[in-house]
């Protein structure tokens, strides 16, 4: 495995992480800002990045800003809004060509960094706040974005399950914002929130590429003047479920039913048993050799997709399948049986070996993209854990069937959600 040189520089108020590597033809800067996931702020946080990229002091419109990116050989800039447990993470990514592959160009990295700093620290303002026109426009776009989740039934079903299952737990909140909260946001409140986020969020900055660590850290420090802060990360608790499994059925005019079964586990990323849990989820449903795929799809032809997903920062496990409505009971029964198989330790050598091989492969492959490298680092940062890739690989190897079964025993079914269509003729 290639050893990339990783370094961390602690600065007042934030950390800079550099990864020196020559394998990419671009250089990437990623800024991650996290804060507690809260009903009052989730929608403003979802809106903020869109307003920021609608214009800077130097390029006071979205088109002008995009023109600057295009001039930098189509530098890629985008933002997203995600959850890590009960924290809300905003990510800003800037990726620009390494000029050594271009004829007669230089200074692309510095220009890209300046542009990124413009977005965060020098937005286009009118009378000291974001222009009302921009805020109204981006509010409308955000509303449309939230409304269109309904149109993608697979995604809708996933979000609906989490919302139903977690109720008042902040984890129930969608990282993309709440439709009902968009209307009440105004220019002044958004600008106040922007200043607060900039001053109080936990900030990590990553630079990946053909760069010199010390030099680039100094550049970051001079371009991105984050103030000193004392931020405390949120402790995410998996939470407890209901006494009895809840069943929620919803009907829409669609062809395929979406079955999503939500479960809880007490094992989260920071737990010593996390890697055993990851292996258990792999045997259970993460791959095409896993129990859910083999039994729901290959043996019974009930579904095209049949899988399980683990959100390790929360301790949330979902089982998913797209099925005909008439097969609902049969599929639920098979899925529950397979979970029991896991808990009883009915795991073959082949299953555990295949799973370990693929988990290790995934982890090593993640080091082949800048974003993959950052995600691995951020798992650790966001959970206050130290599990570098090499150690993680060793831990995967060490998991036994017994430990995987013990991890599976912590999984309890919480809510069965089924979005179904018309009756079969």
């Amino acid at each position, binding site marked *: 495995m290639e050893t990339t040189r990783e370094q961390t520089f602690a600065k007042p108020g934030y950390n800079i992480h550099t990864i020196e590597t020559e394998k990419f033809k*671009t250089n990437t800067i990623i800024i991650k800002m996290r804060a507690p996931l809260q009903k009052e702020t989730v929608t403003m946080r979802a809106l903020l990045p869109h307003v920021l990229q609608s214009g800077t002091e130097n390029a006071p419109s979205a088109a002008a800003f995009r*023109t600057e990116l295009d001039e930098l050989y189509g530098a890629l800039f985008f933002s997203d809004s995600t959850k890590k447990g009960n924290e809300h993470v905003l990510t800003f990514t800037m990726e620009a060509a390494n000029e050594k592959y271009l004829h007669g160009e230089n200074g692309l990295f510095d220009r890209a960094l300046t542009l990124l700093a413009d977005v965060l620290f020098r937005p286009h303002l009118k009378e000291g706040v974001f222009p009302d026109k921009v805020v109204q426009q981006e509010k409308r776009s955000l509303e449309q*974005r939230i409304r269109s989740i309904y149109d993608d039934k697979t995604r809708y079903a996933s979000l609906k399950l989490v919302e139903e299952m977690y109720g008042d737990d902040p984890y129930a909140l969608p990282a993309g914002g709440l439709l009902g909260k968009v209307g009440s946001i105004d220019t002044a409140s958004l600008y106040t929130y922007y200043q607060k986020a900039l001053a109080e969020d936990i900030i990590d900055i990553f630079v990946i590429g053909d760069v010199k660590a010390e030099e680039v850290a100094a550049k970051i420090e001079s371009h991105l003047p984050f103030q000193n802060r004392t931020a405390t990360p949120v402790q995410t608790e998996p939470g407890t479920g209901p006494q009895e499994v809840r069943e929620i059925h919803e009907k829409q005019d669609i062809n395929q039913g979406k079955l999503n079964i939500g479960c809880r586990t007490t094992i989260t990323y920071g737990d010593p048993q996390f890697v055993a849990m990851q292996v258990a989820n792999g045997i259970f449903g993460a791959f095409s050799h896993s129990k859910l795929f083999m039994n729901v799809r290959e043996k019974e032809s009930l579904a095209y997709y049949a899988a399980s997903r683990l959100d390790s920062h929360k301790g949330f496990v979902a089982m998913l399948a797209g099925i005909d409505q008439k097969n609902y009971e049969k599929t639920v029964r098979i899925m529950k049986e397979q979970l029991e198989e896991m808990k009883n330790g009915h795991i073959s050598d082949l299953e555990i070996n295949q799973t370990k091989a693929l988990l290790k492969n995934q982890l090593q492959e993640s080091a082949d993209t800048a974003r993959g490298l950052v995600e691995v680092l951020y798992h650790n940062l966001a959970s206050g854990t130290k599990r570098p890739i090499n150690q993680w690989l060793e831990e995967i190897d060490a998991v036994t069937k017994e430990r995987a079964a013990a991890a599976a025993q912590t999984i309890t079914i919480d809510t069965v959600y089924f979005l179904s269509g018309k009756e079969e003729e």
Partner: protein
Amino acid sequence: MEKTVFDQMNETVYHEQLDNGLNVYILPKKGFNKTYVTFTTNYGSIDNDFIPNGETEFVHVPDGIAHFLEHKMFEKADGDVFQKFSSQGASANAFTSFTRTAYLFSATSNIKENTETLIDFVQDPYFTEQTVEKEKGIIGQEIRMYDDNPDWRVYFGLIENLYKDHPVKIDIAGTVESIAEITKDHLYTCYNTFYHPVNMSLFIVGPVDAGEMMAFVKENQSKKSFPEPVPVERRFPEEAEKAGLEHKEIRMSVNTPKCEVGFKMPASDRTGKDKLREELAASLLLEMLFGRTAGFYEKAYESGLIDDTFGFDYTAERGFSFALVGGDSNDPSTLAERIQTQLLEAKEGGHLTEEAFGRARKKKIGATLRAFNSPEYIANQFTRYQFNELNLFDTVPVLEEMTLQDVTAFAKEMIKAERFSSCFVLPKETA
């Protein structure tokens, strides 16, 4: 083994055509952990009318068969090939497009074993009536999943509109009804016709030694015998220049209407760099007219006509090409009209300024460089280019040579109102 060095990109490709006709390409990628290998046949959903190998008459096969065959390749007498890849630490997959079927894996270990597994399973078909029947349930669910996906429906709905006769209008997976007709004999007929090594390409990209891998593949192939290759005879209906249908609306369970506008172009008779120039002119044109820095985007976004789902796409494959523009919109009729107006104005040279051209070209050069970070992109696109007799590595040099004139000439030649069509997905409630 021939070696080609692409200085500007700092990449080297090794190539050899083996005695049985198979083209093997190897691109060593230093510093990467993963090796990505694709084994691709020049055969896709449009190839449904052909003379089977060893016969003299044309046959017509059921819709969706290339994709069905792709699914069935993975099942063998002794079980599922996915299992074998998993045991060897590889993540395997496959996909079928209009003109290609690709089998692939990515892995960070056991590269030779996995490459052997990939080649051997694709070169050893095993179809039985029983396994064919079982797959119908699984693919039936895949089709139903796409049936509920409004983005897919509006995309394919527009292609169906554009083409009156050409099989590009047939959904790649077919329909529940069409796949019901598929038998194991159909699968063998298609396999024997299109999976001869001469019709296929193997592409290896990753931290490998090119000489060693080439010798390994050669050794594997030398142990197998294949019938004498016969050129594949395919037949396609004559496609009218005019769009088959001007407009269609599909009602679905959605909140936001979706609008796509497109136009088809006659099959190009250009080859090599001229063809690449044409493809690049098309994508620069769309960027200049509909990209985020275009006046069109800014105006439509500010007035609430579009949101950030708005985009465009250009497809050029063996025998057909088309361009699509659109996204979510609360007023799809106005959006469709504006897109068509914008295109017709460009035909007369409107919006096509030197400034916009320079920017679009820079953006495209940067995007191409960025794409070379991705082994997946390199393998899949290189193969697509090779089947179309183009070279992926010519992209940046050709872009650097191009001028605004290439784009204006393309717009003038290709944009015609009669070639336009539009397709909307609308919420059911307002029906």
